[in-house]
């Protein structure tokens, strides 16, 4: 039987073309080896070909067996997955990479405020190029954590700041700063980074003081003291810097034992206990 005809017949039922080609090449190698062996024994090329094809067996029966062994489905799935991967790479490179590059550049920025400081002094630099010399007469290590939803809240730092507001009539200012850290494993939903997570509420303390954002003037008796909040996000972590009682009247306010800080829209309250050094 003609070798080409034998090979075509033996492989014609393999439906996945790359497999058909690969099996045909392999069978062809076997056939050529047999033909060479026949020629070496003194057979003519025609006789060697006939002997080789006869020795390889019935191509029709072999075709049935090869078709059974070489199911096309895995091959087709593999081909499909090659296309899917090519499209995924193309879309990711053209769309996601520029966004991620921009995102990573943002991630490289230094946070706009320190998460914790030690007693002493430090210089805080602002994006506008303005810098402020700040004295830290007291700082605390606050341990523990509180889980609200799937966010874990800890205290990165708590300290008192004092500085002087410059100008024609400079005056000293003192405030309590507490930096809260909220982290989660659900990287697709970090805690909302809006200042109003804190500013929409009124923290209170063990001294009976309350703190509010809408206070523009120096507080009178029984009125809320001032409240401000800055936030920073990196990945799935959000920091909230809470500033309490930015007051000029340094002698009339003392550091409380604890501060209750309402956070978010669900009525949750975090108690930062400075005297015990724990958040609850």
């Amino acid at each position, binding site marked *: 039987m003609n070798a080409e005809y034998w090979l075509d017949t033996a492989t014609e039922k393999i439906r996945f073309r790359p497999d058909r080609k690969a099996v045909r090449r392999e069978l062809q190698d076997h056939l050529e080896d047999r033909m060479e062996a026949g020629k070496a024994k003194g057979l003519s090329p025609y006789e060697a070909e006939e002997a080789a094809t006869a020795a390889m067996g019935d191509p029709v029966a072999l075709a049935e067996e090869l078709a059974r062994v*070489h199911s096309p489905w895995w*091959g087709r799935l*593999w081909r499909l997955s090659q296309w899917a991967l090519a499209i*995924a790479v193309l879309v990711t490179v053209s769309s996601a990479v520029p966004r991620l590059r921009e995102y990573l550049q943002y991630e490289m920025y230094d946070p706009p405020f320190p998460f914790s400081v030690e007693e002493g002094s430090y210089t805080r630099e602002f994006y506008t190029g303005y810098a402020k010399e700040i004295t830290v007469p007291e700082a605390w290590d606050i341990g523990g954590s509180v889980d609200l939803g799937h966010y874990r809240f800890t205290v990165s730092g708590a300290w008192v700041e004092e500085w002087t507001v410059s100008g024609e009539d400079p005056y000293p200012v003192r405030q309590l700063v507490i930096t809260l850290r909220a982290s989660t494993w659900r990287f*697709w939903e970090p805690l909302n980074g809006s200042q109003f*997570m804190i500013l929409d509420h009124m923290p209170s303390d063990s001294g009976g003081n309350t703190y509010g954002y809408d206070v523009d003037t120096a507080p009178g008796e029984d009125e809320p003291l001032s409240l401000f909040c800055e936030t920073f996000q990196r990945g799935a972590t959000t920091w909230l810097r809470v500033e309490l009682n930015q007051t000029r009247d340094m002698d009339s306010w003392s550091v409380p034992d604890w501060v209750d800080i309402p956070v978010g829209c669900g009525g949750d309250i975090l108690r930062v206990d400075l005297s015990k050094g724990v958040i609850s």
Partner: protein
Amino acid sequence: MAQRHRRRFLRNLFLVLIFSLILWYAEGCPLPTQEMELHRWERQRLAPESTVVWSYQGRQGNDRDMLVGVSPDYVHAYAENYRLTLWPRSGDTATLVVLPDRTRYQDKASSYLDPALVAVDPPPQAESARLFLDFSLRYAGTTEEADPAALTRVPAPTYTLEGDRQEGAFFFQLQRQYRHLGGENPTEEEQLLTGREDDIMAFLELEEPRWLSFSYVLTFYDSDGDLLETVTSP
């Protein structure tokens, strides 16, 4: 050979999943439905999860999908990827909320985008509702605030809106009524009202529950037109 194809297929599938995850993250981790997005916004704000009672599908691309949901103490008003506002929920009467984005409506041959409001928890037998809005408070100065009677002298837009029952809530579309006021020579008051209406239409969607700039009277009627409930602004 089949085994080799299977290995390669699984490897490619794994790589496709990795790239898809990168793409999903780069696109801001979008979720498949607006309701899932609403619940994510709620979780990120430590708000309770709401049950959706009303929905709006944006049309023509520049008005957002919106959802209104209820939790035990709040009514949640959400505009797709834009805002979530929580309104204190009245325990035993209906609650009126201002939607956080504008909705589209037809007026003669044109379509407009203007603010809208939704009343949730209406009386079960309510077939119709009416909403009266008075914006005098928004434009009253300090002296007028001290003297309620003076509010009646403040030229400010008022609106009477018929509610449209949708999905168990009542929807009220605010429409301009001073648009063509006064013809070619409007009076000073007409100009003032038109200007104030422009202001209301531009900023009402930013309204916050704590600082309502208007007063309202919301009434519900049964199928016979009998009054069922009246709700007034706090």
